[in-house]
C-alpha cells in the first residue's frame, strides 16, 4: 500500500506531547550563562553615553558589552552594505528595540537585574515612523549615505498610459498591507559554546547550514569546527531565517568568557526585535471593459524596510510585483516598487513573504471591478482566469512562469460547498431588516509562488544555493535514516519524508528515521522556507531513495541469481516477479551490502547510501479558491466569521492530515492579519503593540472552524507532483475575509477597508453612511 497520500500520524509527536521536546531554552550545559539585552527605548536618537559601572559591579555579572567592546566587529550579516545594523548600536539608535548593550551573568535573574542598572543617555532625534513621514520633503534621513530614505526605486518600464486612456473603465485603490509581527510562540533563542574545539551554536532557526556558513565567514573560522544546531524549534513563519545580532554576540561572548552563553528573548523583545512582515503600501490601478474583462494592471509597491534594510526585505516587493496578476490573464501589466527606510523594526519574510500582499491587492481589484460593472465577483474571476490549456503561461515577470493550475476548477469545487445563491438572498433579506446583522460573502482565487528551488532563486536572498540535500542511508539491519538539509519546525517533515522514502524503498515506515537541524550530522543543507520542504527536499528524498533502491535490487538479484530488472519488493522482501516463494528480506540485502564478498561485481560497500543535492527547474505555483462569510453587527461594527470555505490545489498530497494542518495554520494567520493584528507605531516611532496584551494573536474562540476541499493539479517540475502548502492559507485568507466585509457593506458605497478590519473602522463607516 502506498503511504504517500495516507493519513499517517506524526513521528514527531511522542516527544512533543510528553514534554520531551528539546527546544534551545531547554538546553542547560554545565556552566551555562545568560545574556540579556538593553534595547533602545528611542526610535531615533544619538547615544551620548552608556553607564555600565553599576551593572558590572553586580555580583554574578561576567560581562557588559556596548559597541565600544566590539568596535572591530563587522555589522550584522544579511543587511545591505553601508546600511546594515551594527550588532550593538554605535553612536545612534534607529528603532525602538535595537540592541544597545548586553549583559552576561551567571543566571537570567542576575542578568535581568544588571540590565536594569545600565543607564543610557540619549539625545532624541526626529523620527519617521511611517512611509509617508519618511518620504515627506525635508524628512529626517536615517542613513546619511543614502541622502534620503529611499533605498531603491524601480520605475515602470512602461506606465501603460495609452492602455488606461483607451480603456472603457478604470479603477484604483490605495491599499495599506498592515505590518505584522510573526510571533512564533517560541521567541528567538540561541546558545553558543565556543571552546578549544570550535564553535557550537544552538539556535531557534529555520536554516542551520545557512547560519553556519555565515557565522564561520563572519568570524573567519573554518566550517569544519563550526557547528549549528536547530533542535526542536517552536515555529518560525519566516522570521527565523534572519541573521540577528544575538547569534554573533552570544558566540563571541562565549569565547571571551569561556562558558556557554544563552540568550532567551522575552515576548516584549520579540515583538520589536524579531523582524516584522508585510508593511507595504500599494497604488493599484486596473483598466477593464464593461463586461469586467481586465485590460491592464498597474501596481506600485512601497515597501517599508524598517530601520535597516536586509536582503530578504528588499526581495519582498520583487515577489509581490511578480505575482501581481494573480490567476488572471492580463494583457498588460506594469510594475514599479520602492524600498524605504523608517525608524521601525526591520522588515523581512513572514509566512507568504510578498505573495499575500500580491493576492490581497489583485483580489480586492477583482471585487472592485465587479462592483463597478455590476458583474458578479465570481463571474469576473471566471472571465479573467488563465484557462487550463494555457499552461505553461508566461507572465509579465520572468520569475513567474506559471507551469500549471486549474483556477476555474478550484472555484467550481469551492462552489459545491458554498450555497452562494442562498447566501445572496439571505444577504438581501438582512439588508432590509435593520435589526439583522449584515451578511457578506467574499471570494479569493489566489495563486502564489512557492517551492523556492530553481537555481538562483535563493542565492538572490544570500543563500549558498537553491537545491536541498537528502541523504538516504540504509543501516546494516535494513532500517533507514534520512538526513535532510531542510530544517522543519512544525511542518511534520520527518513524517512526510519517511512516507516518501517508505514507498520508494519498500521499507516499513516505522523503520525510517529522519535527522535534521544539525550541521555536524547532515551533509549540507539550505533550509525550510518558501514552502520548499516537500517540493524540493521531499523530491530529493525520493531521488536518493530511488537510487538506493536500484542498488538494493541489484544486490537482491545477485543473491537470488536473477536479473535486477525482474526484482520486485513486497513486505520488505525482494523476489523475482511471479516467484514470491523464493525471496530475500531487506535486512539481508542491507547486511550483505556491507560485505564485499556478497556484492555483485563492480559494486562497493556503501552502495545503499546515497546523497542527492536536489535541484528543480522551476518554482511551484500552489493555488486555490477560498470563500469567507461574515456577519457584521450594525451597532458595534464587530465582524464575525460565520464560515470559511477553503479549496486548495497543492498538487499531490503526501499526507492529508498535515496538509490540513498547514492550511488551517496559514488561514488562521491570514484571518489574524485581516481582523486582529497590526504592529502599530505612534508618530514618534514608539511601538504601541509590543506585548501580547496589545498585539492580538487570536485565541481559539476568535477563529472559526474551516470547511476544506481540494483539487489536484500535479506540479510538473518534480516527480512527486507536490507544490508546497505552508504559506497558502496566509495568501488566500486575507482577501477572502476583507472581500466579505466589503461585500457586506457594499450597499453603503464602501469600496475598500484596510486591514485589520477593526470594529471601530467598521462602525465609523456605518456611522458615516447614516
Amino acid at each position, binding site marked *: 500500500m502506498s503511504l504517500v497520500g495516507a493519513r499517517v500520524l506524526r513521528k514527531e509527536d511522542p516527544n512533543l506531547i510528553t514534554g520531551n521536546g528539546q527546544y534551545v531554552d531547554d538546553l542547560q550545559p554545565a556552566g551555562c550563562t545568560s545574556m540579556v539585552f538593553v534595547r533602545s527605548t528611542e526610535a531615533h536618537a544619538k547615544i551620548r553615553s552608556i553607564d555600565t559601572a553599576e551593572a558590572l559591579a553586580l555580583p554574578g555579572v561576567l560581562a557588559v558589552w556596548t559597541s565600544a567592546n566590539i568596535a572591530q566587529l563587522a555589522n550584522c550579516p544579511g543587511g545591505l552594505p553601508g546600511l546594515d545594523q551594527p550588532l550593538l548600536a554605535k553612536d545612534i539608535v534607529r528603532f525602538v528595540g535595537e540592541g544597545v548593550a548586553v549583559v552576561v551573568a551567571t543566571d*537570567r*535573574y542576575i542578568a*535581568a*537585574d544588571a540590565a*536594569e542598572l545600565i543607564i543610557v543617555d540619549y539625545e532624541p532625534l526626529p523620527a519617521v515612523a511611517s512611509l509617508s513621514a519618511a518620504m515627506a520633503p525635508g524628512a529626517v534621513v536615517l542613513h546619511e549615505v543614502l541622502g534620503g530614505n529611499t533605498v531603491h526605486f524601480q520605475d515602470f518600464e512602461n506606465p501603460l498610459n495609452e492602455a488606461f486612456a483607451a480603456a472603457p473603465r478604470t479603477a484604483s485603490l490605495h491599499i495599506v498591507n498592515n505590518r505584522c509581527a510573526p510571533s512564533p510562540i517560541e521567541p528567538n533563542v540561541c546558545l553558543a559554546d565556543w571552546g578549544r574545539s570550535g564553535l557550537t551554536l544552538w539556535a531557534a532557526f529555520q536554516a542551520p547550514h545557512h547560519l553556519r556558513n555565515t557565522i564561520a565567514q563572519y568570524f573567519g573560522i573554518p566550517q569544519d569546527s563550526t557547528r549549528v544546531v536547530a533542535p526542536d524549534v517552536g515555529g518560525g513563519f519566516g522570521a527565523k531565517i534572519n541573521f540577528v545580532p544575538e547569534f554573533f554576540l552570544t558566540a563571541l561572548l562565549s569565547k571571551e568568557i569561556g562558558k556557554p552563553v544563552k540568550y532567551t528573548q*522575552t515576548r*516584549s523583545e520579540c515583538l520589536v526585535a524579531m523582524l516584522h512582515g508585510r508593511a507595504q503600501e500599494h497604488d493599484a490601478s486596473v483598466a477593464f471593459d464593461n463586461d469586467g474583462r481586465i485590460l491592464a494592471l498597474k501596481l506600485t509597491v512601497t515597501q517599508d524596510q524598517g530601520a535597516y534594510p536586509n536582503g530578504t526585505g528588499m526581495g519582498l516587493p520583487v515577489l509581490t510585483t511578480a505575482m501581481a496578476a494573480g490567476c488572471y490573464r492580463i494583457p498588460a501589466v506594469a510594475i514599479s516598487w520602492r524600498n524605504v527606510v523608517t525608524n521601525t523594526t526591520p522588515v523581512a519574510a513572514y509566512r507568504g513573504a510578498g505573495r499575500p500582499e500580491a493576492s490581497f491587492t489583485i483580489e480586492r481589484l477583482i471585487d472592485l471591478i465587479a462592483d463597478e460593472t455590476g458583474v458578479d465577483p465570481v463571474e469576473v474571476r471566471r472571465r479573467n482566469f488563465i484557462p487550463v490549456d494555457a499552461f505553461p503561461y508566461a507572465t509579465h515577470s520572468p520569475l513567474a512562469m506559471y507551469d500549471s493550475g486549474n483556477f476555474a476548477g478550484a472555484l467550481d469545487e469551492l462552489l459545491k460547498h458554498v450555497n452562494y445563491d442562498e447566501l445572496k438572498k439571505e444577504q438581501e433579506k438582512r439588508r432590509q431588516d435593520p435589526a439583522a446583522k449584515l451578511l457578506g460573502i467574499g471570494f479569493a482565487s489566489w495563486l502564489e509562488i512557492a517551492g523556492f528551488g530553481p537555481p538562483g532563486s535563493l542565492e538572490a536572498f544570500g543563500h549558498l544555493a537553491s537545491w536541498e540535500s537528502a541523504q538516504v542511508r540504509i543501516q546494516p539491519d535494513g532500517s533507514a535514516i534520512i538526513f535532510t538539509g531542510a530544517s522543519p519546525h512544525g511542518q511534520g517533515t520527518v513524517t512526510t519524508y519517511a512516507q516518501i522514502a517508505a514507498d520508494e524503498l519498500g521499507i516499513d515506515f516505522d523503520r525510517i528515521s529522519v535527522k535534521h537541524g544539525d550541521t555536524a550530522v547532515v551533509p549540507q543543507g539550505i533550509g525550510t522556507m518558501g514552502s520548499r520542504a516537500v517540493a524540493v527536499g521531499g523530491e530529493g528524498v525520493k531521488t536518493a531513495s530511488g537510487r538506493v533502491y536500484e542498488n538494493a535490487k541489484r544486490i537482491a538479484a545477485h543473491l537470488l541469481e536473477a536479473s535486477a530488472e525482474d526484482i520486485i519488493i513486497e513486505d520488505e522482501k525482494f523476489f523475482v516477479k511471479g516467484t514470491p516463494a523464493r525471496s530475500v528480506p531487506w535486512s539481508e540485502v542491507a547486511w550483505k551490502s556491507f560485505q564485499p564478498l556478497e556484492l555483485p561485481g563492480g559494486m562497493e560497500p556503501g552502495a545503499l547510501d546515497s546523497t542527492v543535492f536536489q535541484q528543480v527547474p522551476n518554482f511551484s505555483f500552489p493555488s486555490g479558491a477560498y470563500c469567507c462569510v461574515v456577519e457584521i453587527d450594525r*451597532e*458595534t461594527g*464587530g465582524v464575525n466569521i460565520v464560515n470559511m470555505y477553503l479549496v486548495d490545489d497543492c498538487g499531490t498530497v503526501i499526507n492529508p492530515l498535515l496538509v490540513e494542518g498547514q492550511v488551517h495554520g496559514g488561514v488562521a494567520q491570514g484571518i489574524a492579519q485581516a481582523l*486582529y493584528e497590526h504592529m*502599530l507605531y505612534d508618530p514618534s516611532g514608539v511601538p*504601541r*503593540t509590543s506585548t501580547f*496584551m*496589545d498585539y*492580538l494573536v*487570536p*485565541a*481559539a*474562540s*476568535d477563529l472559526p472552524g474551516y470547511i476544506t476541499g481540494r483539487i489536484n493539479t500535479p506540479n510538473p517540475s518534480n516527480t512527486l507532483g507536490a507544490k508546497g502548502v505552508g504559506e497558502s492559507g496566509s495568501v488566500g485568507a486575507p482577501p477572502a475575509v476583507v472581500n466579505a466585509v466589503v461585500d457586506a457593506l457594499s450597499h453603503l458605497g464602501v469600496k475598500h477597508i484596510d486591514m485589520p478590519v*477593526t*470594529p*471601530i473602522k467598521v*462602525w*465609523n463607516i456605518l456611522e458615516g453612511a447614516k
Partner: protein
Amino acid sequence: MIPAQFDYVEATSVADAIRLLAEHGDEAKLLAGGHSLIPLMKLRLVTPATLIDVTHIKELSYIKEDGNNIVIGALTRHRDIEESDLVKKHLPLVAHVAGEVGDPQVRNRGTIGGSLVHGDPAADLPAAALATGATMVIAGKNGERRISAQDFFVDFLETDVQPGEILVAIEFPKHTDAGWAYEKFVRRAMDYSIVGVALQLGAKPGVALVNMSNKPHLAVSASQAIGKGAAIADVLAVINDDTNPPEDLNATVEYRQHLARVLTQRAFATASK
C-alpha cells in the same frame, strides 16, 4: 520577565496581615491571586520591597449567606464565585461576571478582593460590585470599617484602602430572582473589555460601566432613572453622564460612548427576558 528582588513574608491571619503591613510600611504590598501584581512586577512596572502573601489566610476564602446579604471573602477566587450555587441563586450577575474575567487560568488564581483593590476601570468585577450595590469590609489596626462600592473606587488604580489596611470581605445585597445582564465588548475573547455594562434590575437596580472612566464607574443618573421606572430611551440618554472614557487603539471617546449606549440597551433586552 523577571521581577526585581523582594522580601517575602506570609500572613496566616487577618491580624497577622495587618501587623505585617504595619511592620513593613509603604514599600510592602499584599499578594493575593497575583494576577494583576505579578504581571506588573515581571515588567518591573511595580517593584515592592516586600510581598505579604495573604493567599494562605483560609478564613478569607468563603461565600456565605448572612440575612439579606451574600458575603464573599476577599480571597475567594473568581472561579469559586463563578461556580457557587449560592451566588448563582442570589447574585447571578456576579457569578456570571466572575466567569467572564480573563481566561480559566486567570480565574483559577485571581481573587475578588485583588480585583476590587486593584481598581482597574477596565476590570469586570468592580462593575458587578457597583451595579449590585456591594459594600466593602476593610480591616485595619483600628478594626473593621465598611464603605460602599461607589465610594470605594477613588481614581485610576486607586481605592479607599489605606496603607496598613486589607480588604477582608464584600457584602452583596441579595438580588434573588431579579433581572440582570452583563455585556462585555472585546475584540479578542479573553481580553479586558473595550466597554462593558453590568446591569442589575429589581428592587435596588444599578448599572455600572467598564472602561468608561478613570475608575470603575457607577452610572448614577442612569441607575436612578431605572429605579424610577424610566423608559429605556431615557436611561440611554443619561448613561454616559459623568463618564470620562479613555482613548486607545481600540476606541475613541465617541465610540466608547456609543458602545455604552448599545450595550446598555442590549443588557436591558437580556435582563428583562
